[in-house]
């Protein structure tokens, strides 16, 4: 199949405005008779559904949680980027564009990323208008902070709960449209297939998770806003329910999967505490604004952190990357932590952790407070007390969370952190209009592959989810639907719908009838271990080949020995999880295949065969400057399609943060 990314021609800065002025429109009367299905109610889904309903389309939304407000966007902590330049520190749309392309290690499209940077400013305006309580300065204006991979302050935030506040804003807009009758919401529903008619997406098969019933829903277009697939690793910072099923079903119906191996491993997470671990918890990147990361200079040092004198500490990020220090991008910080731990400098009981230390920040803020409050003859203790109060105001909820999970007090002892799977840059391949290779089927937010290249910068996921939903899809979908206005709703008892429903029911029955001996959870754990060991922070050809063989064997074992309790026609979370794990197993194989194909290191994808003498990632632009778009051809069989990446405005270079 031929791929056309449909990037508009013309000057980079004019592409989006030209597109908006020339794309086809659907008139208000026709919008009322057009149905749109939105799957997922996170930032991308809720913002898209609300905005499309405001425009007059008839929208149905689906989420597996009990309410649209629970989607995992809610857990994003640190902030959202926007090129407002309120700080007068040299920011601009171009700089945000440039930082994002560079941060992504030159594996994202110029056209998409520039559009993202352009609409970033509208997002902040929209959210404030909705009542999102961003942090403010005493003068009443909005506050900003820094994130990794940038040298300006462009991140807007609401304490450590930015995702929650943005999602509640989008959710409130969605609930308003539900009240107005423009949106019908289906909670505790999971999409289990896309229905295509004459090659176009025309609906979905959804399962009512409470009753177990399958339902058929028609739409003139279908939007997948279903998030990322980090849970393929079993342990990740994703929510327990986050899954790839909707995207995977779309993939099997013809949607290409873009750059599946591009995974973001976040450097600052709370380390694994034992075999019981069910998920990992992120400590926001914003903590790297003030915290310093270090390990002992001596291998296997067993002293308590506070007993290790200053001169015997290795602040390895500041040492290796003096220009960006603790604020290097996530992929760089994660690999540096792994390098120190693998070399025997790790800390804590498992030795698989590094310190994130707030002692200096507490001192520094304490002294600033002394100055602000005009105090004289202040004791050391008083300075620390004042400093702790400032740190508590800035990061209190994050430090409290650390304390609850670990039982340690981060105001007194440095936190122990280690990298964990956090985000997937890969996803369904989409063109400039966010349409997949299946006409009428769109992917928004983390579910698509489009804007972050091989590494996403901090505070850019929220920006992209809301950009796609509020400001991109409302235009681009019209360009498609304008030619669909004559299409009458297709009855859901048409052969295509019935066949898709039957295939879904058959698969569920097959799963239930295996009646094997091993729990779904046990298969998921084993898949995660293969993926983490062989397709995690560092990858090599031999390991990836082994992983593919092991995953294929695991798949056979799953389909012959999984044990699912309960029955089909009731609330059965184990059955739902089984379907998701089955899809993760297939995805895991494709991720390894993609990682094996890409014999270069770029961003979060680190091939051990391709590194500099200093151990930095070594790109191979001559051979791999493309998006890998995988086409499903049958079981364990994919065809690679390449979309060449063209840089007309940015001169691509080795990415350096030194």
């Amino acid at each position, binding site marked *: 199949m031929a791929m056309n990314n449909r990037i508009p021609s013309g000057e980079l800065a004019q592409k989006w405005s030209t597109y908006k002025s020339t794309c086809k429109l659907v008139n208000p009367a026709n919008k009322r008779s057009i149905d749109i299905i939105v799957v997922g109610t996170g930032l991308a889904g809720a*913002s898209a559904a609300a905005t499309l309903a405001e425009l007059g389309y008839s929208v149905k939304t689906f989420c597996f949680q*009990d*309410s*649209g*407000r*629970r*989607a*995992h966007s*809610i*857990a994003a902590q640190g902030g959202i980027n926007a090129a*407002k330049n309120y700080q007068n520190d040299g920011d601009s749309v171009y700089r945000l564009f440039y930082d994002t392309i560079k941060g992504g290690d030159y594996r994202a499209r110029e056209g998409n990323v520039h559009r993202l940077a352009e609409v970033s400013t*509208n997002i902040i*305006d*929209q959210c*404030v*208008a*909705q*009542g999102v309580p*961003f*942090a*403010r300065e*005493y003068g*009443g204006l*909005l506050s900003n902070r820094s994130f990794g991979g940038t040298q300006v302050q462009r991140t807007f935030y609401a304490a450590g709960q930015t*995702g*929650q*506040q943005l999602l*509640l804003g989008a*959710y*409130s*807009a969605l*609930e308003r449209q539900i*009240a107005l009758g423009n949106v019908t919401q289906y909670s505790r529903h999971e999409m289990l297939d896309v229905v295509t008619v004459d090659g176009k997406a025309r609906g979905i098969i959804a399962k009512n998770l409470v009753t177990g019933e399958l339902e058929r829903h028609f739409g003139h277009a279908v939007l997948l806003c279903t998030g990322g697939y980090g849970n393929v690793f079993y342990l990740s*910072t994703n*929510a*327990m*329910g986050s899954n790839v099923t909707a995207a995977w079903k779309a993939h099997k119906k013809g949607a290409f999967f873009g750059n599946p191996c591009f995974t973001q491993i976040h450097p600052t997470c709370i380390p694994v505490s*034992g075999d*019981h671990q*069910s998920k990992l*918890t*992120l400590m926001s990147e914003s903590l790297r604004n003030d915290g310093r990361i270090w390990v002992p200079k001596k291998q296997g040092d067993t002293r308590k952190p506070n007993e290790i004198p200053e001169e015997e500490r290795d602040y390895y990020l500041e040492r290796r990357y003096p220009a960006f220090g603790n604020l290097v991008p996530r992929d760089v910080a994660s690999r540096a932590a792994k390098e120190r731990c693998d070399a025997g400098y790790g800390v804590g009981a498992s030795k698989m952790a590094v310190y994130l230390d707030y002692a200096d920040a507490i001192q520094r803020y304490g002294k600033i407070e002394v100055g602000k409050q005009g105090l004289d003859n202040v004791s050391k203790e008083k300075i620390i007390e004042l400093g702790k109060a400032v740190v508590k105001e800035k990061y209190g909820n994050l430090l*409290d*969370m650390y304390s*609850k*999970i*670990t*039982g*340690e007090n981060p105001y007194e002892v440095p936190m122990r952190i280690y990298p964990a799977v956090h985000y997937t840059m890969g996803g369904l391949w989409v063109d400039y209009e966010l349409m997949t290779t299946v006409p009428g089927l769109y992917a928004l937010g983390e579910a698509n592959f489009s804007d972050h290249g091989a590494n996403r910068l901090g505070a850019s996921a929220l920006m992209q989810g809301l950009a796609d939903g*509020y400001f991109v899809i*409302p235009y681009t979908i019209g360009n498609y639907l304008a030619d669909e206005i004559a299409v009458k709703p297709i009855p859901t008892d048409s052969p295509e719908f019935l066949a898709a429903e039957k295939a879904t029911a058959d698969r569920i029955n097959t799963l239930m009838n295996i009646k094997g001996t091993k*729990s779904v*959870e046990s298969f998921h754990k084993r898949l995660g271990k293969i993926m983490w060991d062989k397709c995690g922070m560092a990858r090599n050809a031999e390991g990836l080949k082994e992983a593919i063989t092991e995953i294929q064997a695991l798949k056979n074992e799953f389909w012959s020995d999984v*044990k699912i*309790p*309960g029955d089909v026609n*009731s*609330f059965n*979370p*184990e059955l739902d999880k089984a379907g998701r794990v089955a899809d993760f197993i297939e995805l895991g194989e494709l991720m390894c295949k993609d990682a094996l194909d890409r014999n270069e290191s770029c961003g979060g994808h680190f091939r051990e065969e391709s590194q500099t003498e200093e151990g930095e990632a070594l790109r191979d632009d001559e051979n791999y400057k493309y998006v890998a778009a995988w086409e499903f051809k049958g079981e364990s069989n994919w065809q690679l399609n390449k979309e060449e990446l063209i840089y007309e405005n940015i001169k691509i270079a080795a990415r350096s943060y030194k």
Partner: protein
Amino acid sequence: MEHYNMNLNLKVWRQKNKNDKGSLVDYKVSGISSEMSFLEMIDVLNEKLVADGKDEPIAFDHDCREGICGMCSMYINGRPHGPWAGTTTCQLHMRAFKDGDTIVIEPWRAKAFPVIRDLVVDRSAFDRIIQAGGYISVNTGNAVDANAIPIPKDDADKAFAAAACIGCGACVAACKNASAMLFVSAKVSQLALLPQGKPEAQKRVLDMVAQMDKEGFGSCTNTGACEAECPKEISLENIARLNREFTTASIMSEE
């Protein structure tokens, strides 16, 4: 902190569906680490139930396991979200318990939150209350520049503190009247404190309170149980603010 393992006696509410009567069932779990989260302890029990094959695993709501999505909802030893203040069930860790403890685990109890299965309840009433007015009516594209209206930091901070509500329903579960006042007041306060929310403030509070009553939540008698058990420590001041907003709106609407 020292790690330790423990054996526990659990009494868990089992109920097949909303029409089933339901009852507490005894389970024993052993080798539970003090490092586990409470839900990881339930995971251990569920894996054991799957392996034994006699009883189906216990159904419970959970998702982010970071204390922010509001999905988890257990009533543990008579307290919503268990013994730790300002903590959701998913963030409660087993070091809160000791070897040999008996733990009673029940679903939220409220007429407006019918049980779906075991520990899972239907909280869609909260969505309907938000639909009644928990928003600012601004279509995408209508916004002015974000810094066009300065908002005093104090107001912004108070609005944020109210907006921290995760909609879990612990306030309802804690209240002897199963009142939803803390939930409703948090949203009313957030929007009433901000200039953007003022134009609709009066209609909002009247409509949201009317919907709350329609859903079958009880009346507020100011016992403060909701504030004491709220995992996000939403303040009772919000209820006072809701009452002021409601009174003003009621008087104004009669004119």
